């Protein structure tokens, strides 16, 4: 099917800038396009974002399709669907990628069904099969107990990609590319949904069970004051604080921070266990974590059994150092953007 060509990513805008997931998609899309020896396209839909097309090029896009019109200011399934359908039919990309975001998980499947093709959502790995040149779409299934790799023989081949699994490329302001403005021919009767109100909810402190990073303290923390230090690290990592049973019992932290079989069962990306021994009860509560970093002065502590990385030593010495290092790192990352 020679007419389907190029990799198209659907770009999202956050606070007037390209969303992090979009730059990640551009990076990943670039690799796929290179593997195919084809071009990378970026579709930008919205209003008042002229400068961003250039950004997309700086991050690797060869062509940017821009739909820039006031009605497209905010996401609406019917509106966005109709313009993306239009662009897709026009451009006929071989691959279309979305971020696994509120928009991506809404628009992606709709577009796929409308185009009569399939999509894999929430992918963590994408590759081109050398022989068939088909897109290999790998995603976690069964609560990440397994991973499945799919292919699809209809075009375009589509996927949504989980945030933060792909790395953003370095920005290259010197890159050149083509910006193509697309007319949004709006069809009012097609719009059957109307957004009445948009509410941004300030996340004041992330809930333990939702946090991607959890810093958890044990009996060794010794006091409520000690937990303040954990809170600081959690704050920097945009995470939450948890505790094993003794701190809860001793009233250093409220009971709802209990992590363990009998408390919260959590599965963050990163779990930092500080001065906790890791009873089996506790481990059941956190064993779903992707990465467990343990800090404990007892090298025999059970926590090291379940941890990915460990440091043996006194937490009171180690934690401030860690907090500083991470703070530096995060600040650096911000500067990068």
């Amino acid at each position, binding site marked *: 099917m020679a007419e389907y060509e190029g990799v198209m990513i659907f770009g999202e805008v956050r606070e007037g800038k390209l969303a992090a997931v979009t730059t990640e998609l551009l990076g990943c899309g670039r690799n796929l396009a290179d593997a195919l020896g084809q071009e990378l396209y970026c579709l930008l839909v919205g209003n008042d974002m002229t400068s961003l097309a250039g950004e997309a090029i700086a991050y690797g896009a060869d062509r940017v399709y821009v739909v820039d019109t006031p009605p497209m200011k905010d996401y609406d*399934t019917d509106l966005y669907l109709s313009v993306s359908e239009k662009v897709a039919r026009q451009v006929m990309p071989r691959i279309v990628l979305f971020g696994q*975001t*509120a928009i991506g*998980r*809404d628009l992606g*499947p*709709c577009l*796929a*069904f409308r185009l009569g093709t*399939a999509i*894999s*959502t*929430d992918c963590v790995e994408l590759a081109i099969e050398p022989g068939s040149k088909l897109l*290999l779409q790998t995603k*976690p*299934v*069964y*609560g990440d*107990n*397994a*991973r*499945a*790799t*799919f*292919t*699809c*023989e*209809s075009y375009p081949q589509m996927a949504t990609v989980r945030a933060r699994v792909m*790395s953003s490329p370095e920005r290259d302001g010197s890159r050149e590319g083509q910006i193509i403005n697309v007319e949004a021919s709006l069809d009012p009767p097609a719009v*059957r*949904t*109307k*957004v*009445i109100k*948009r*509410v*941004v*909810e300030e996340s004041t402190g992330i809930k333990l069970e939702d946090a991607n990073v959890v810093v958890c303290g044990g009996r060794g923390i010794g006091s409520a004051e000690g937990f303040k230090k954990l809170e600081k690290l959690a704050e920097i*990592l945009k995470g939450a604080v948890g505790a094993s049973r003794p701190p809860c019992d001793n009233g250093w932290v409220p009971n709802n921070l209990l992590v363990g079989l009998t408390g919260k069962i959590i599965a963050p*990306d*990163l779990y930092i266990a500080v001065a906790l021994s890791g009873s089996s009860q506790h481990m059941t509560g956190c064993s779903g974590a*992707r*990465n467990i970093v*343990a800090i404990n002065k007892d090298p025999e502590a059970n926590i*090291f*059994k*379940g941890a*990915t*990385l*460990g*440091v*043996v*030593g006194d937490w009171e*010495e*180690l934690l401030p*150092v*860690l907090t500083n*290092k*991470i703070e530096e*790192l995060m600040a650096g990352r911000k500067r990068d953007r």
Partner: protein
Amino acid sequence: MTAVRMIVCCKQVPDPEAPPESFRIDPERNRIVLTPGVSAVIDPYAERALEAALRVKDAQGGKITVLSLGTNLLPDVVRKPLSMGADELILLDDEAFAGGDSWSTAYALSMAIKKIGDYDLIFCGRQASDWDAGQVGPGIAEMLGLPLVTTARKITAGNGKATVDKITDDGYEVVEVSLPALITVSNEVGEPRYPTIKGIMGARKKEPVIWKPDDIGAESSRIGAAGCRTKMVKLFQPVHEGKCEIIEGNSPDEAIANLVTKLREARIV
């Protein structure tokens, strides 16, 4: 206020709360093998979709038809929505439906919904806990040409439209949608209710309706494995390193520096 006619799509899945050690993969056949002690349940997202429908019914009155597609559906499991308060249960239970993907499933369900005919709202879970695809809802909407609102957490319906609180990445939107429409429900809707004893007694008296492909006029090439648009080429278990790597260092500073480097290398932070 008029009664709302609702259809809820419920999927039977292996219990997502079963421990990871009960999962194995049969690499030969690219299939998940579960230990016999893992029970089947109604997908938790679907249960929440049902809960959302029940709340609409509580508020406005209405009728809820539950639609389930699968093979080896267990009567005790798929009947649960009835005991929770659904009015009717239709099962698409046939070997021909086996081995489907989001496409063939959405097709079969949309054909069944067409047959049901009268409806104001269709509810699906935002995704199902087994394959986590989240496509069947949008798929049905597309196939039936219905407006779609995904990841809802609150729904009120009436007067030809529904008002939905839809979860977004940084908050929520209040969306008005004309009926009929399809809504996928997010877990933020809250805990699904428990069946009452009365409900269970009542459910025992209701017989599910079973539809075969012919009953819904489905083309055999478009259902089950035959109707798949995707092909699973590989199924594998991510290798979890059992060993803990102890980070050494001559001083606390050095140890932590090494740790952070590791974390960064592994793109954990």
